[in-house]
């Protein structure tokens, strides 16, 4: 093989390890060397585990064959790993060692994956840039003066630089797709309930989903196949078996006969030229691949951001109440229990987390509930209906992932509203619980990646990866990807 191990696909690694032509130690070492070289420039990881967390005798048996044997995987630091620090990017969980593995972590181990480390994120997944991390900001490897996106920024950087073959992130409102778009990756937000949330530290439970970063459709689908399938520990987990990877056709004709709807009216003002160009390239490629592209009408997404931030902050205000200094994590001793709560939370939470807890507490307060939370729930149902209706006549909807490519570090840090508005295209899928996949759509003249996304009907991630695979055949072979250049 002419290619270094760290550039290999998950499929090649898993096959090689299965056949005995690749040694897991060599695979892990190659990826660790990349991490060591890149970390000073990008700060993708909060914890690196030398040699990786390997499956041991306690690992579950996968239902079928092992799909990720020896594959180095990075995981976002809001997924619980037994005995390995899990901070959620927050000072309030500094030093916290979970006594159990998240279901997706158990399934990674069951499929033979090697967890190389825990990646940086905006504190409790609240943010779009990793600037809200309590442990420093990650940087975009394509331009280290820019953000990698967030909140799963560290996971994106790990896969983009090659220190992991695939990575897990989490989404509540675009936190996988947006950093994927900023770093030339595929980022999947599965259907709500497709991947178990057991062990994913909650931000907004009704929208949280574990997501997958990959450099190819095949690697992403393979990872989804390994991790999906009903989990009895999560009452919102979808019934039914895992995605059948072997039955999935990701060949040249993968998109033939599929219909893709474009909500043309949404793509008006404010859309960056490079993003608009990305949309045009992808539309053309879809047609070339044998798909039908047609316009669809959606209600204006003007209410999406407000709806999302009311519901997400309300749930967050409750989910984050448990971080009180009593049982685990940071504790600021005080004279009485109320002061202990106050001082612990004052010291442990960052500004954005506090802002969202306050917003959410307000939205749920007596006298305001109907006007805010109640109304937002109604709006959410309307958005669900609207997206579902648009998907009746087509297999997927095509949107930009973000209005602009990666922005500069510090550019929006002091303007929370501008930061929130950058989620405009991603949060629809989260509100509706639908699966969505961001795929690479070229680069700007300045060398920044651009992404677009597909949304499909519930549990139809297979269609999303088929569309992505068709684009790979039309536009660029993922194995010949444009890698970022390490700053000297």
């Amino acid at each position, binding site marked *: 093989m002419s290619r270094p191990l760290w550039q290999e696909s998950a499929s090649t690694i898993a096959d090689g390890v299965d056949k005995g032509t690749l040694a897991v130690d060599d695979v892990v070492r190659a990826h660790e060397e990349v991490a060591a070289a890149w970390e000073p420039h990008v700060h993708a990881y909060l914890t690196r585990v030398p040699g990786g967390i390997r499956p041991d005798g306690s690992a579950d048996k996968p239902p079928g064959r092992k799909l990720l044997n020896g594959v180095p995987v990075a995981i976002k630091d*809001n*997924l*619980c790993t037994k005995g390995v620090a*899990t901070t*959620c990017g927050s000072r309030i*969980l500094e030093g*916290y060692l*979970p*006594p*159990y593995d*998240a279901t997706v972590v158990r399934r990674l181990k069951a499929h033979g994956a090697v967890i190389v480390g825990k990646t940086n994120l905006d504190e409790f997944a609240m943010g779009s840039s990793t600037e809200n991390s309590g442990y420093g900001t990650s940087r975009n490897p394509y331009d280290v003066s820019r953000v990698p996106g967030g909140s799963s920024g560290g996971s994106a950087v790990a896969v983009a630089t090659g220190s992991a073959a695939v990575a897990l992130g989490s989404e509540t409102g675009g936190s996988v797709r947006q950093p994927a778009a900023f770093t030339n990756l595929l980022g999947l937000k599965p259907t709500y309930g497709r991947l178990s*949330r*057991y*062990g*994913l*530290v*909650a931000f*907004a*439970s*009704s929208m949280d989903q574990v997501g997958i970063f990959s450099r190819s459709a095949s690697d992403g689908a393979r990872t989804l196949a390994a991790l999906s399938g009903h989990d*009895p*520990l*999560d*009452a*919102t987990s979808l019934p039914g078996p895992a995605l059948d990877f072997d039955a999935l056709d990701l060949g040249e004709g993968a998109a033939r006969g599929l219909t893709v709807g474009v909500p043309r009216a949404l793509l008006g003002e404010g859309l960056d030229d490079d993003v608009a160009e990305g949309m045009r390239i992808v539309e053309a490629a879809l047609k070339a691949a044998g798909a039908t592209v047609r316009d669809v009408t959606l209600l204006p997404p003007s209410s999406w951001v407000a709806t999302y931030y009311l519901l997400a902050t*309300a*749930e967050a*205000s*409750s989910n984050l*109440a*448990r*971080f*009180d200094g*009593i*049982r*685990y994590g940071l504790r600021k001793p005080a004279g009485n*229990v*109320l002061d202990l*709560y106050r001082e612990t939370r004052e010291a442990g939470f960052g500004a954005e987390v506090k802002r969202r807890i306050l917003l959410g*507490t307000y939205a*749920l*307060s*007596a006298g305001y*509930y109907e006007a805010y*939370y109640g109304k937002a729930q109604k709006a959410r149902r309307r958005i669900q209906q609207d997206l579902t209706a648009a998907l009746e006549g087509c297999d997927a909807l095509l949107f930009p992932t973000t209005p602009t490519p990666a922005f500069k570090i510090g550019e929006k840090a002091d303007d929370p509203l501008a930061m929130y508005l950058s989620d405009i295209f991603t949060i629809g899928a989260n509100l509706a619980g639908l699966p969505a996949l961001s795929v690479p759509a070229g680069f700007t003249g300045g060398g920044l990646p651009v992404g677009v996304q597909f949304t499909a009907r519930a549990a139809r991630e297979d269609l999303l990866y088929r569309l992505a695979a068709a684009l790979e055949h039309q536009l660029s072979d993922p194995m010949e990807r444009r890698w970022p250049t390490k700053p000297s």
Partner: protein
Amino acid sequence: MAYETVLGLEVHIQLATKSKLFCACPNEFAGEPNTRVCPVCLGLPGALPTLNAGAAAMVARLGLALGATVHARSIFARKNYFYPDMPKNYQISQYDLPIVTGGALDIGTSEAPRPIPITRVHLEEDTGKSAHPEKHGDREETRLDFNRCGVPLAEMVSEPALRSPDEAFAYLTALRRLVRWLGISDGDMEKGSLRCDANVSLRPVGQEAFGTRSEIKNLNSIAGVRNAIAAEVLRQAELLDRGERIVQATLLWDQDKERLQVMRTKEEAHDYRYFPEPDLPPLLFSAEALAAETRALPELPLARARRFEKELALPAYDADLLTDARDLADYFEETVTAGAPAKAAANWIGNDVLRTLKETGGTLATFRETLPPKRLAALLVLAAGGTLSSKLARDLFAILLVEKGEPAELAQKHGLVQESDTGALLAVAEGVLDANPSVVADFLGGKDKALSFLVGQLMKQTKGRANPTVAQEVLREALGRRGAPR
């Protein structure tokens, strides 16, 4: 001024499931602190609840027994407040869509029904426990035990339809009987399996509008509930008599000092910020599941008491006594089915069986192993047939508790067979009269009472085996021969 007391009770019922409400930890009382816990009931980051369907079924059963509506769809909600023994700082409960609404708990007797309307019954999780602060080294510490965290609770709220502390007492007694009857809780208030909060207000007799209420918390015995409410009624009446205003407040009942303390007033009331629990889907009962639960519902205490009165001609007192517990009613009914006369069975079970249980401190379940209904019935049949006097029957009862064997055989073995032979008893009677000339003289002189002494002596001579009726007859006959017949 004369006031009417208006009471509503909120009772938390710990459900007797095998495991906790949202995790697989065992649902057991006490235990070493923090040994029956897992990531879910400790509310660790990332852990998620999954519903124990058995607990929901128990609430449905209670609802059906109350004649209430059991909703096909209900919603869990989060009740948000900070408390150190509640690890998530919210409680998973139900709010605007509980499992059960309506229905009534009858706190009366079979003769005098008194249905108390129920507002709702919902399902929620219990909290942990905070120990009283103690010195550990040079620091004062409060220690937390999370074993109880996540234990399933049914919260049952009554309408403000109770009118006296005695009615509150009757309500809790009836509820305790019902939950035990249905097998959904051990109903033990001292262990905290039933916990009661009482809403108390007064209004002038004849007035429609309710007065300002206070809520009494921390009531952990049925007698305590009565005492606390009585104290609060007195306090409110005194305030009203003085023309003062009642301030809406939450009070704590101090069991040891028998005193109420103010915990907080309305101004300090919580805003719990309820919202639908996103981690749990709506709780659904299919029509089939509810039909099955309805079919499985046992005959309820009052209905059974009325049937005992009607079909077995029992007095109301007996019927109510025997339906105090389901196993007691079962025991009675099985004894009757095995052939015992109903009234005799009621008397024997109501007196001798219950007394034995009380004296030995045993349960009916273990007692039945020694004296199954069939065996008791055999004894009662012997007694009814005249083979055994009631004295002999009691002797045989005592023997049955310690010796194996059929009652008839044991009666033979121990010589517990009634002597009704006139000739044999006459001989004994003559002997008794010979031995007691002065008593005989008394009787012949007109003292009727002397006869019972002589009967007693005859019984003594026959070791209690003489048929009392025959004994009297032969004594009169023998006495008649010694003087003027009377």
